[in-house]
């Protein structure tokens, strides 16, 4: 490479030779990503080969105030990785090591340049895979997926990237190295991992990422259905949802897209169809056998003119190849196109599509529609020819109308592609100025100098946000009474927060140790209660923070839906807000994910006593930072939650439990690993360590549950066999855990949640069983080893602390009736500068008590 002339020579000097280039060939090749309408030549390109080289590069940029754009394979469709002319591109494609693959705990640790599909390929020999499947999965990188919280066709059931990233090591734009989350799907404290995913490269670079892997579905039942009218296809989607089925994917393609895909891949789509619908069921064969008949009946009731069922893997592959190549295949129809990514509530799909067709007609441009129908995520492809003057502007104007339409319909400007450069002017349509301000502040916590991917996401790019006025915390008279102050509306809460110097919001205080503070006024939101919106066909509801979980459960039950994260303490009166703040999920979280995976939106009051909206009300939304996730586990230390929006699922027809006696903990942990990796899609896998009993729960009819459990026995050759349990009985472990009543006989017991791995759980089980602790400790390992619920006699806490230090695990005390401990956290924890910076970004006046960690 030729010698460097620009300021980059000092960067080159701290890296091995050949890493930095400012040759025209490099600058040209990196000038744009998958959206070529936007391009810019960077000053130079750095291609680091190790994490250390990335760290040196970012720190050099921070020191020299030089912007950088980190990039994976450059497949962004929002211009998210377009370079900046006064900065460098950091290409992460050579950081492509899969550093660890742990099939028992079902996790992989990867570098950011690892290609999405390669994770699944590496996991395949263990029967596992990485669920998010963007159409570009053959080449897009995990780092890029994280930046834009990428989705794919299978988001409806399994969620997006953020639902599968459980930990990461990052370098922030200031050069700070931080670690978020860990090796367990459960974590303690504010969910910084969730915040980082979808931050569009504005926070820094993820250097090492821990991914959750799930068992490969055993069976697929893929059906391709042709319709003569788009509306009929839309109606069919609603019919499938209303039937209580939960397909892995539901996709619709319009005629123009069908034509392009058919030409490119000969995928065998129905001829003459105005719309093609793909529905894919997946799961264990016993269940699919039943569900495919159900699906068939639903489809028969629609106006389908042709139904093709994929007979084998090859035909399924062809159907998906057509869908996944649709975007690029349109390249054959038109020299240029813009892909939009708006989301609308599913019930308004038909209406939205008609409007989009009308807009396209008016603009004189062609528009091909491909969309993730299951979650209302539209992908209109606007075809244009950039060489015709004015057409790009015309296309952008059409795109703008579509985005505005999505927002007006209560949806989002982006479901999975991110805001990037392309949609940045539209973000403010979704969030009011106060909410935008909070996002600016959070960004500044990570990147005060605006050097990480500047110009993206925020309207008018990088122009500094108007510094919002901040009411100083002038409240003086804090009456620290013992009973909390009651508020019954967000406005009352907002006023109350402004009135006191230090406040902490509580619900019904079912987890008292979390609200034990001596320097803050407690404000109770239990009177701020009620479900504000429930849309069964959208799989969403919104409710005030003080709403009891029991009320939500009962309301969802009327439409045979449920909260898949299986909240705890429901009958003890726990509220939705308190559950979010504590970040508690129950054993049923094993199947589809925990609380963090189902929260969609949060309205909250920040330290300035301003009401802020974050997230959205639709099942898929990648616009703006994912603040709702951040609050999960924050213990009310960041802000006061007022209203929350959640995703729900159809409830399993029935639940059936079975138990398996184990000889020792080691064998039990092995069996848990085998069960979790198997094809059976169990609803829960827990282990009662004291009784040495594994408990599994299957969400299916009795007959199917029986078939599945018989197959488990055959496959794992378990002996003795599983015994069926009567779920209504109190001795079922689910009940005990639900009430966190693990050690009823011990008065001064302390109950805590400890995110763990199978190894740690096994060691903790040994520890509990050892002579000194027997009878004084009860361990319930939940979520297939990912979390330990431990109840222990108060006097044994110091010993537990010591044990946790050895295991390098921390715990959160949830129950402590005798006030044995003063702090809610036990075991080793670490507060990092970035944690404090983010807290301060949301609560600028220290209104809320300090972090629990």
């Amino acid at each position, binding site marked *: 490479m030729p010698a460097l002339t620009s300021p980059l020579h000092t960067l080159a000097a701290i890296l091995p030779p050949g890493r930095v280039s400012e*040759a*025209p*060939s*490099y600058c*040209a*090749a*990196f*000038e*744009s*990503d*998958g*959206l*070529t309408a936007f391009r810019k030549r960077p000053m130079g390109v750095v*291609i680091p080969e190790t994490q250390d080289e990335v760290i040196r590069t970012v720190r050099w940029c921070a020191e020299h105030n030089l912007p950088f754009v980190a990039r994976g*394979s*450059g*497949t962004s469709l929002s211009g998210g990785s377009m370079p900046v002319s006064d900065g460098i591109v950091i*290409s992460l*494609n*050579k950081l*492509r090591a899969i550093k660890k693959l742990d099939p028992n705990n079902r996790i992989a640790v990867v570098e950011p*340049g690892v*290609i999405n*599909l390669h994770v699944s390929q590496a996991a395949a020999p263990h029967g596992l895979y990485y669920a998010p499947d963007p159409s*570009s999965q*053959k*080449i*897009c990188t995990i780092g890029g997926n994280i930046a834009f919280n990428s989705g794919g066709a299978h988001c409806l059931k399994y969620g997006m990237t953020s639902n599968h990233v459980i930990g990461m090591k990052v370098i922030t734009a200031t050069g700070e190295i931080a670690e978020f989350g860990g090796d367990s799907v459960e974590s303690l404290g504010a969910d910084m991992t969730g915040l980082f995913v979808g931050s569009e490269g504005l926070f820094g670079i993820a250097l090492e990422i821990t991914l959750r892997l799930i068992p490969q579905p055993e069976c697929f039942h893929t059906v391709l259905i042709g319709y003569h009218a788009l509306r009929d296809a839309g109606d069919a989607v609603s019919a499938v949802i209303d039937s209580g089925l939960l397909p892995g994917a539901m996709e619709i393609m319009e005629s123009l897209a069908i034509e392009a895909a058919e030409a*490119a*891949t000969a995928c065998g789509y129905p001829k003459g169809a105005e719309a093609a619908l793909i529905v894919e069921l997946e799961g264990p064969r016993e269940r699919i056998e039943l569900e495919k008949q159900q699906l068939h009946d639903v489809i028969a009731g629609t106006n389908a003119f042709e139904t093709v069922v994929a007979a084998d893997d090859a035909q399924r592959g062809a159907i998906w190849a057509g869908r996944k*190549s*649709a*975007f*690029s*295949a*349109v*390249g*054959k129809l038109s*020299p*240029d*196109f813009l892909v939009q990514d708006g989301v609308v509530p599913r019930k308004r799909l038909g209406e939205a599509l008609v409007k989009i067709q009308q807009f396209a007609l008016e603009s004189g441009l062609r528009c091909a529609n491909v969309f993730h129908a299951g979650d209302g995520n539209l992908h209109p492809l606007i075809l244009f020819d*950039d*060489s015709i003057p004015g057409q790009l502007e015309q296309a952008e104007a059409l795109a703008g109308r579509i985005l505005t339409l999505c927002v007006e319909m209560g949806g989002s400007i982006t479901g999975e592609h991110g805001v990037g450069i392309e949609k940045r002017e539209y973000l403010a349509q979704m969030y009011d100025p106060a909410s935008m301000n909070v996002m600016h502040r959070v960004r500044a916590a990570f990147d005060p100098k605006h050097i990480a991917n500047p110009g993206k996401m925020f309207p008018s790019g990088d122009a500094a946000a108007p510094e919002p006025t901040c009411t100083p915390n002038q409240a003086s008279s804090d009456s620290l009474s013992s009973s909390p102050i009651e508020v019954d509306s967000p406005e009352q809460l907002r006023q109350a927060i402004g009135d006191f110097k230090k406040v902490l919001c509580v619900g019904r205080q079912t987890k008292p140790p979390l609200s034990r503070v001596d320097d803050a006024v407690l404000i109770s939101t239990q009177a701020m209660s009620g479900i504000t919106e429930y849309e069964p066909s959208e799989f969403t509801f919104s409710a005030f923070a003080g709403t009891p979980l029991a009320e939500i459960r009962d309301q969802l039950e009327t439409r045979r839906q449920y909260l898949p994260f299986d909240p705890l303490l429901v009958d003890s009166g726990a509220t939705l807000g308190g559950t979010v703040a504590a970040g508690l999920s129950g054993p049923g979280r094993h199947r589809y994910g925990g609380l963090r995976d189902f929260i969609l939106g949060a309205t909250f009051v920040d330290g300035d006593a301003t009401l802020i909206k974050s997230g959205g009300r639709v099942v898929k939304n990648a616009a703006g930072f994912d603040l709702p996730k951040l609050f999960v586990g924050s213990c009310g230390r960041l802000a006061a939650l007022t209203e929350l929006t959640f995703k729900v699922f159809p409830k399993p027809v029935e639940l059936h439990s079975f138990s398996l006696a184990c000889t020792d903990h080691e064998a039990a942990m092995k069996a848990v690993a085998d069960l979790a990796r198997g094809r059976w899609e169990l609803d829960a896998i827990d282990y009662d360590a004291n009784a040495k009993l594994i408990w599994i729960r299957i969400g299916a009819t009795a007959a199917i549950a029986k078939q599945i459990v018989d197959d488990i026995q055959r496959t794992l050759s378990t002996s003795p066999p599983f015994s069926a349990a009567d779920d209504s009985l109190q001795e079922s472990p689910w009940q005990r855990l639900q009430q966190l009543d693990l050690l009823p006989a011990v008065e001064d017991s302390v109950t805590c949640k400890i995110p763990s791995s199978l190894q740690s759980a096994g060691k903790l089980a040994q520890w509990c069983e050892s002579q000194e602790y027997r009878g004084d400790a009860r361990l319930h390992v939940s979520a297939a080893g990912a979390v330990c619920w431990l109840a222990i006699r108060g006097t044994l806490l110091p010993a537990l602390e010591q044990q946790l230090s050895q295991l390098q695990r921390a715990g959160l005390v949830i129950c402590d009736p005798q006030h044995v401990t003063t702090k809610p956290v036990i075991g080793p924890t670490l507060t990092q500068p970035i944690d404090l910076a983010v807290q301060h970004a949301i609560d600028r006046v220290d209104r809320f008590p300090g972090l629990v960690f």
Partner: protein
Amino acid sequence: MRHEINREQYGALGPVMADAVSQCVHCGFCLSACPTYQELGREPDSPRGRIILMKEVLEGTIPLDSAAPHLDACLGCLGCVPACPSEVPYGDLISPFRALHQSKQPRSLGNRIKRTLAQLTLPFPNRFRLAAKTGKLAKPIVGLLPEALRVMLDLLPDELPAAQRLDAVYPATTKQRGRVALLAGCAQQVLAPDINLATIEVLNRNGIEVVVPQRQGCCGALSWHVGNLKAAQKMAIENIKAFAGNFDAIVTNAAGCGSGIHEYPLILKGTEHEEAASRFAKQTMDVSVYLASLGELAPIPEPTQPITVAYHDACHLANAQGVRAQPRHLLKSVPGITLVEVRDGHLCCGSAGTYNIDQPEIAASLGQQKADRVIESGASLVAMGNIGCMTQIENHLQQKGSHVRVRHTVQILRDAYQGKL
């Protein structure tokens, strides 16, 4: 993708190149199929990156010498073509681009000698034979030679088979079903003359008369792919003349030659021969395609013991000619053969014409990977349809001490007919 290439500036090939650029939407799907991107991990060394670079050079916005190293590193394997949902005809861009810019590109002396030597010898069997023999003599002093020449010598076999002169006509040995002309190939005639004999025998046994036009020459693909348009055009015109006659098909058994002939319409674009070139290309097909088109083959005897055969997709057969199913079908029809796939089969073996001479490091890395995958397949024999791949894979298998035998698909068929499989 938008471009500002002046379509008129580059003669008959200008619009072809401009259209190819225009069709690319920069989605990046091709990166997953590109062996050099996999090796180097750098955007400018990917198909998408190279398209941008060629576009920029054609537009005159970046200098050729900045783009050249990345374009030279392209194998021309066309792995990107089947991976591209927009169906960008990448070959229609890179080959004309090379033809256009070859002469303008400054190169080192060693590099020039290498390229010139290869082009002056490989297409001419007699010269190549002589050069190969000379090279063989030079093998003991290989350490003293410049790196550029050393790789060429490394690829030469220790022993050259005896020269084989082919007759003008080989009549069918069973009831005649057809009549074809055979393109005998050039390097192949020196390195493995047996492939032609096997082709003739299998065709004859199936009732096909084989004519070997005596005035035929090199197909020109080698020259074309390194950018020597004039030489390629001359060879193409000579072959079109040499193969004049009434044949059911013109049969090739070297993937590189077959794909070269399919590019004649491009090579001769804008000349008076363009139409003849199109007709000629349409008539030309790989021997496996022709055999598969016959339907039932003459019965093949049961072998003494079953055998596992892996099939390697030659880029110029699979990607350039879309021939994947037919050779597999033929091999599966041989009694006793269990056919297995080679993992990561879409990746080039690194031979790619003269690539293993021009870019020895990448070629060696790809060759080693391919040998590993072949060994891993558990086959005792690996079949393919291209002499370049055969030399490369055999070389790397030998280096790994493997006993997997490398055979052309028709050699396996012939051996099976003779009961010597």
